[in-house]
């Protein structure tokens, strides 16, 4: 039963979409199916998928997290700055993750304990954080990127070759981030399906009143969920540092819309309680593919943006619709 819920039709639709977009790309865009373009799309998908973990969790709760792009920028700049200042990377990572978790806890607890819409809280907290980061670096972040992070996400990097039982496997033509995100993603799906936290998250998202009667503590779950969201956003920020090679406080901006779109294309309901991270993984790939094809078709950046807006509205109109009022009485 649980497994069957993983494969309800919105995943099917998303996978079909991914295939259709791929075929259109093959047909219309020269070089689209090449190894390099597939590698690039896989890496971009992996980065988006990390950033979208938190959006998935927040939406399963019936909330939303608009602080993700700001936390990405925060982690991106602070990690580069501290590492450039000579701290060992493990310490840098712990500091960044710790601060991000605090930001997330603040988001979750403020929203849940005072009954304020998370949209406003996360927007306010995120705006503040970004202002603080920009003020700290005076708008010109410096610092350095550890080489192994660079290697971890670089499109040109390969994995392996490995020796398994005397057999040489690989080298695989993609960087380590791709399989790590894939395996990590499956772990997230299983955690949400099988752990107490995961079940309470779904319970609170689908019916807050009933969940409270079942002794789910809303403020605790909201705090944990938004902390997780900010932690994954911070990880995405550090990975982006390796991807772009230098720090930039607004590097997360595109991820505001993209994380929401990936989650929604993946079939997770904004009203909470329905959906899964598996959908988000597929949704992230569809979105990146779409973006690549639109650019490949030779549209200029303004028109790509407009076309993306049209396509997402159409996609969500096909299978992300809310129930009519009369169906909810």
């Amino acid at each position, binding site marked *: 039963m649980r497994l069957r819920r993983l494969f309800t039709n919105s995943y099917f639709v998303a996978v079909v979409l991914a295939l259709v977009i791929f075929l259109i790309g093959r047909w219309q865009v020269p070089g689209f199916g090449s190894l390099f373009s597939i590698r690039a799309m896989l890496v971009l998908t992996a980065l988006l998928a990390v950033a979208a973990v938190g959006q998935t969790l927040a939406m399963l709760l019936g909330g939303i997290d608009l602080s993700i792009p700001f936390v990405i920028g925060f982690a991106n700049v602070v990690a580069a700055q501290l590492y450039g200042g000579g701290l060992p990377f493990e310490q840098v990572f712990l500091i960044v993750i710790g601060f991000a978790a605090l930001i997330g806890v603040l988001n979750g607890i403020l929203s849940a304990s*005072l009954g304020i819409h998370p949209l406003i809280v996360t*927007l306010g907290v995120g705006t503040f954080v970004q202002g603080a980061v920009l*003020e700290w670096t*005076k*708008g010109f972040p410096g610092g350095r990127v550890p080489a192994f992070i660079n290697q971890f996400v670089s499109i040109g990097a390969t994995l392996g070759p490995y020796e398994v039982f005397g057999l040489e496997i690989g080298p695989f033509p993609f960087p380590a981030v791709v399989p790590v995100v894939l395996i990590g993603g499956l772990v997230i799906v299983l955690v949400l399906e099988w752990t107490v936290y995961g079940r309470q998250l779904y319970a609170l998202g689908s019916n807050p009143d009933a969940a409270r009667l079942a002794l789910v503590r809303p403020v605790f779950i909201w705090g944990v969920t938004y902390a997780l969201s900010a932690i994954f956003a911070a990880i995405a920020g550090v990975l982006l540092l390796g991807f772009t090679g230098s720090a930039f406080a607004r590097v997360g901006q595109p991820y505001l819309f993209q994380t929401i779109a990936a989650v929604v294309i993946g079939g997770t309901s*904004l009203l909470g309680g329905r959906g899964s991270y598996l959908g988000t993984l597929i949704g992230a790939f569809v979105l990146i593919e779409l973006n690549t094809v639109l650019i490949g078709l030779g549209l200029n950046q*303004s028109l790509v943006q407009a076309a993306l807006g049209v396509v997402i509205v159409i996609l969500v109109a096909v299978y992300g619709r809310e129930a009519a009022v009369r169906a909810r*009485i």
Partner: protein
Amino acid sequence: MLRFSNALGEARFAFIFVIVLLIINIAVSPARFRPSQLGIMLGLAAPLIYAAIAATPPILSGRGGIDVSIGPFMGLVNVILVQFIITDRGWTEPWIIVPLVLGLGVLSGLINGLLAAIIRIPPIVATLGTYLIYSGLTTYIMPAPRGSIPGWLASLSQETSIIPLALLFLVWWGIRRLPYYEQLMATGGDDRATYSSGVNVTGVRVGAYILGGLFGSIGGLALTALLGSGDPTVGPPYTLTAIAGAALGGVSLAGGRGGLFGAMLGAIAIFLLQNILTFLNVTSFVLQMAYGFVLVVAVVLNSAAVQARLTRLLGGTQ
């Protein structure tokens, strides 16, 4: 005083905030707040005020209703007005420009209302979609700032800046006397109960988006008046301040609570805060921190839980 603050309802916090900020503003720069300068000050604040007012009706209609496309829409109105209407066609008369701009507002409201209320795409996704479409079209139509505007339009950001705002509130005053207003607030409060009592909930919501679009188009006009030209980059940031202003003014994101007057007060509070900080010569980064901080503090103080506690502390009646 207590009765007065009750009449202000959810907006009373924003009202107090505006008074305090106004006093500080007058203290630090009395010259800018002389009565003769009020038209110019209002002109400066106008795009922000209209953006917050435009954001309000969709939020009032409830069930996640929101229009995040409002900023880019004001930017789109700006470039369409300057490029297509004034530069290409040479139409500069108010009786041509004003109806065309208001028409754009109704059209945008219809599109958002169709997507969010009739097709029932979650409003934040639907209007993020139109956000992308509008901002893409804006930079496509006008890649870099250019153009000029007729004198009557420029004066809308100075001596005549009060006229559109007064007309807008006259229209809202009329709407509040129609059954539509009660239906809107009821829909925002509990759409299922409202539907059950025979109200066309979908129609009410589409109406809310049309009102938002209409007010937003006036914002586009005010923005153009203030800029004096077309600029593709200025629109999008207004989305953030519009929603912040509405939330500050006591408009509940859950729907059904708040009003345009509160949203206007919220926007004025943000403008005054911006003014003080600019006067203190802080960087735009500190300004951004202040936005975020004020937004969070405002929604915390406006939240039902804190309000109930405050009322009990002050010994007022519930």
